[in-house]
């Protein structure tokens, strides 16, 4: 049994590919901003207009929102809701699942429509799903261990931090 959740990492090239895909989506859909949030509530990336709210709190609540809806889906006999939509008067958000591990959050206002966002996001979700599937596969095959462990041998420093 694993000790805790599996870990994964992404390289600069992965990050570049993620950004490129999201930037294209933002251009095509006229949405304001796209955020990627890990299912445990960590913010992974932000593309587009920098949000003016606290992104850490936002990421946490997004993950909780998505997880709660996942459970609701199961209660009514669905395996998942792979997307969610929250409508506001000015600002709205669209959330989509990526490879069961990451959540894509799109923030948009009345410069675009839900229809267009939905239409354009489909291709982006497919692209990102492939990208993340590759990353997780790499993590499983142990390739990521070639990354230097930045905390290796840092026991003394950790001890000092808590003195």
């Amino acid at each position, binding site marked *: *049994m*694993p*000790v*805790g*959740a*599996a*870990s994964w*990492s992404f390289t600069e090239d992965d*990050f570049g590919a993620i950004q490129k895909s999201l930037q294209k989506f933002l251009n095509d859909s006229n949405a304001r901003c796209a955020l990627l949030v*890990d*299912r*445990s*509530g*960590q913010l*992974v990336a932000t593309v587009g207009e920098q949000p003016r709210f*606290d992104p*850490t*709190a936002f990421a*946490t*609540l997004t*993950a*909780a929102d998505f*997880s*709660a809806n996942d*459970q609701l889906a199961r209660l009514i006999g669905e395996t998942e809701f792979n997307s969610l939509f929250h409508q506001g008067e000015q600002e709205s958000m669209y959330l989509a699942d990526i490879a069961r591990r990451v959540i894509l959050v799109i923030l948009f206002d009345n410069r675009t429509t839900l229809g267009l966002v939905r239409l354009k996001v489909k291709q982006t979700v497919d692209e990102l799903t492939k990208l993340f599937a590759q990353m997780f596969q790499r993590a499983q095959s142990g390739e990521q261990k070639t990354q230097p*462990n*930045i*905390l*290796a*041998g*840092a*026991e003394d*420093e*950790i*001890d000092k*931090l*808590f003195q």
Partner: protein
Amino acid sequence: MSMINYASREINCKIVYYGPGLGGKTTNLEHVYGKVNPSTRGKLISLATETERTLFFDFLPVDLGTIRGFKTRFHLYTVPGQVYYNASRKLILKGVDGIVFVADSQIERMEANQESMQNLYDNMQEYGYDLTRMPFVVQYNKRDLPNAANIGELQGSLNPGWEISDPQRQRVTPDPYHAGENLVEQIKSGEWVERAPYFEAVAVTGEGVFETLKAVSKMVLKTLA
């Protein structure tokens, strides 16, 4: 699951405060929020009912310092303690790196403590996480109350130790926080057991709150080292 962000030079870890209802989990977070420098912490988010009972979770991000140029950022969560909120409680455990079990020392709450501890083991197992092998500390809160049970009783009931079968780990390990006590030892029946480190606290006054947080954070970082 900790996240290391090389771009922003941050290590992000998730710590969950677990325990029975009204045991003081939210109070722990409120104390941390009130005491740390505002520049090193984020907003305290509380999803609570009108009567201030935690409905979904409380959340507080805090920076505990820098190691090798990386900011160590801990995301502290509490779960709703009340028994019937299990569905939402379980969600919060997703991707957890370290657990603090906040027990209510009052003798009348012994059963509630045990029920919550069992629930923690069950929920962790459902996720496939092994609680006995991850950073885990127990905090006995409300030590100032006259009806608080003694530590021996609480330890016996909530933290009696889990068996260690791996011979390499069967070595007496002293408890760094309590002189004369051991975290790993051989008990009278001959079995080797390991207990989680424990702390005494009075969360409303802040006593023991940082000791607990420091201990679990240190354990989490050491799992990465």
